[in-house]
C-alpha cells in the first residue's frame, strides 16, 4: 500500500485520483493507528479504575453491614455472619514486617557486593542468579516451603527460638507456644526470600547512578569500601533505595500462594509469631471457594478492596520516590 502511494506518478489524471485515494487511505491508517494506541493506553487506566470500582461494589454489602468497625473487628464467623478484617490485616502487616526486616539488610548487602566488591566478570552471572529468585513462581515457593522449609522450622529453628528468645523478658511473648512449623514467622521468612531480588535489583540500579567521580574521590582520600557505601553511595541514593524497599513491601503485602501454604490459616490473632495466622490474600484464596454468596463473599471482597488500597498507597509512594531518583540521575 505504501509502495503504490509513493511510486504513483502524478501526471496522468487517473493516477492523480489514485494518488489522492491512496493518500486518503494512508491518512486513515495513520489516524486509526494513533487512536488504537491511545485507546490501549486508556484501557490501562480503565483497568485499574475497574479493579477499584468492581471490588468496592462487591464489598459494599459488607461495608454497609459492619461500617468502619469491619476494619478493627477480629471476628470471623461464617455461621453467625460476623466478619471483621483485623485478623487478616494484622497477619498481612506482621508477615510483611518480618519479611522486610530480613530482606532489606540482605538485599542491600547483595547490592553492595554486586556493585563494589564482586569480581567484574562474575557480576552479571551472580546478578542474574539472584534475579532468577524473582522469576520462580510463587506457587513453587509454597510447595517448597511446606515440604522442605516447614519441617526445618519445626525441628530446629522454632525449638531453638522458643528455648532462647522465648525466655527473654519483653520480647519473649513473641516466641512462645508449640513449634508447629506452620506460622507467621515461617511465612515471613519465605516472603523475605521472595522479595529479596526486588530490593537487590533496584538498589543495584540506583547504586549504579552514583557518579563514579564521587566514589573515586572518596576512595582517593583513603575511605574504606564500607565508608564509601555508608557516606557516599547510600546518602546519594537514599530516595531510590527507599522506593525499592516500598516496591518490595507492596509485593510482600499482596503475595498469596506461598503464604497460603505455610501460614497455617488460623483466623485468630495470636501474640506469638510462631503461632499460625492468616493474611488478607491467604484468607481470600482459602475461603473464596466455600463462601456463600451474600455477606461472606462480600466480606472477602471487602478484604480484597482493603488489600488493593493498601498496596496502591505503598506502590504509589514507591513509584513517586523512584521517579524523584530518576530526575536526579
Amino acid at each position, binding site marked *: 500500500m505504501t509502495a503504490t502511494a*509513493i511510486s504513483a506518478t502524478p501526471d496522468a489524471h487517473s493516477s492523480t485520483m489514485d494518488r489522492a485515494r491512496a493518500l486518503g487511505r494512508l491518512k486513515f491508517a495513520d489516524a486509526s493507528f494513533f487512536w488504537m494506541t491511545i485507546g490501549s493506553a486508556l484501557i490501562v487506566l480503565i483497568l485499574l479504575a475497574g479493579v477499584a470500582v468492581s471490588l468496592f461494589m462487591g464489598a459494599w454489602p459488607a461495608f454497609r453491614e459492619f461500617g468502619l468497625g469491619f476494619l478493627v473487628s477480629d471476628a470471623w464467623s461464617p455461621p453467625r455472619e460476623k466478619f471483621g478484617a483485623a485478623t487478616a490485616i494484622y497477619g498481612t502487616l506482621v508477615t510483611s514486617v518480618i519479611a522486610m526486616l530480613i530482606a532489606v539488610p540482605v538485599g542491600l548487602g*547483595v547490592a553492595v557486593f554486586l556493585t563494589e566488591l564482586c569480581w567484574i566478570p562474575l557480576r552479571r552471572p551472580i546478578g542474574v542468579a539472584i534475579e532468577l529468585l524473582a522469576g520462580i513462581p510463587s506457587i513453587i515457593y509454597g510447595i517448597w516451603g511446606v515440604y522442605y522449609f516447614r519441617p526445618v522450622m519445626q525441628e530446629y529453628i522454632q525449638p531453638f527460638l522458643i528455648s532462647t528468645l522465648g525466655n527473654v523478658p519483653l520480647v519473649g511473648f513473641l516466641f512462645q507456644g508449640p513449634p508447629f512449623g506452620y506460622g507467621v514467622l515461617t511465612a515471613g521468612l519465605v516472603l523475605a526470600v521472595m522479595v529479596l531480588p526486588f530490593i537487590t535489583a533496584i538498589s543495584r540500579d540506583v547504586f549504579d547512578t552514583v557518579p563514579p567521580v564521587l566514589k573515586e574521590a572518596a576512595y582517593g582520600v583513603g575511605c574504606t569500601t564500607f565508608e564509601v557505601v555508608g557516606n557516599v553511595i547510600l546518602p546519594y541514593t537514599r530516595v531510590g533505595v527507599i522506593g525499592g524497599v516500598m516496591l518490595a513491601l507492596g509485593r510482600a503485602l499482596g503475595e498469596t500462594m506461598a503464604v497460603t501454604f505455610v501460614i497455617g490459616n488460623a483466623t485468630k490473632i495470636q501474640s506469638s509469631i510462631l503461632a499460625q495466622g492468616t493474611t488478607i490474600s491467604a484468607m481470600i484464596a482459602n475461603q473464596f471457594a466455600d463462601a456463600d454468596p451474600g455477606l461472606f463473599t462480600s466480606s472477602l471482597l471487602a478484604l480484597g478492596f482493603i488489600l488493593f488500597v493498601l498496596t496502591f498507597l505503598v506502590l*504509589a509512594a514507591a513509584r513517586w520516590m523512584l521517579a524523584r531518583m530518576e530526575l536526579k540521575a
Partner: protein
Amino acid sequence: MANPLYAGRRRRNAIWTTLAYAATAFGLAWLVLILAALIWKGLEGMSLDLFTKSTAPPGVVGGLLNSIVGSLIQTGIGLAIGAPLGILAGTYLAEYGRNSRLATVVRFINDILLSAPSIVVGLFIYELLVVPVGHFSALAGGVALAVIGAPIMVRTTEDMLNLVPNQLREAASALGMPQSLVIRHVAYKAVRAGLVTGVLLAIARMTGETAPLIFTALGNSLFTVNPTGPMSSLPLIIYEFARSPYAEQQKLAWAGALLLTFAVLVLSISARALSAQTQQR
C-alpha cells in the same frame, strides 16, 4: 598498622564486607536449595504418563495432560488479549504521549498494575466475567492473565522504543512517511528483539500465576479445550495436589512444579539474553 584509628576502620570494613559476602551467599543458597529440591522431587514423578494422561482420582495412574494443555490455552488467551493491548499502549507512551499529562498518568498507573497483587486482579475478573455469566471459565482465566501480562509488555515496549535513535525517525519522516508507518516499519523493526523480550517476560509471568485463576478458571479434572468452561492449569493442579494426602498426587504436584519452573526460567533467561542483545546494539 600502628595507628589504632586506621586499624579500627579496617576492622569495621572487614566485618561489613564479610556480611555483604554472606548476604550474597545466603541469597544464592536459597536458589540452589529450591532448584535442588525441585529437580530431586520432580524427576521422581517424571514419566511418559505425565504427558499422555489426564489427572485422575487417587489410586488410578494419572498425568498432567489436561493441566499442561490448560496452561497453554489460558496463557494463549492472555497473550492474544494482552500483547496487542500492551504493545499498543507502550507505543503510545514512547511515540505519541511522551511527556504529556495523559502519558505520565498512564505510566504511573501501569507501574502500579505491574506490581498489584494478582489475587486482587482475580477478584476483579471474577466480578466482571464470572458473576454475570454464572459459571467459571478458562476465558475468564485468560483475561485475568492478560491483565497481569499487559503491564509488563507496556513497560518493556516503552523502554525498548526509547532506545530507537531519533535520527532514524527523522530520516523516515523526511521521506514523507506518516508517523504510524515510521513507528511500524522503522521503530518496531529496530527493536524487534526487545518487543519479543517483553512478550517472553509476560508469558513467563502469566504461566506461573496461580492466585487469579482460583476464582476464574477454577480447575477441572477432565481434559477439555472448551474455553467457556472451567479448565485446569499447572499452577492450579500444583496448588490442589501439593495439599493432597495421597503420595501419587503429591508426586504429580512436584513433577508439575518442575515442569512449570523449568518453562518459566527458560522463558525469562531467553528474554534476558534477547534484551541484552538489543541494548548492546
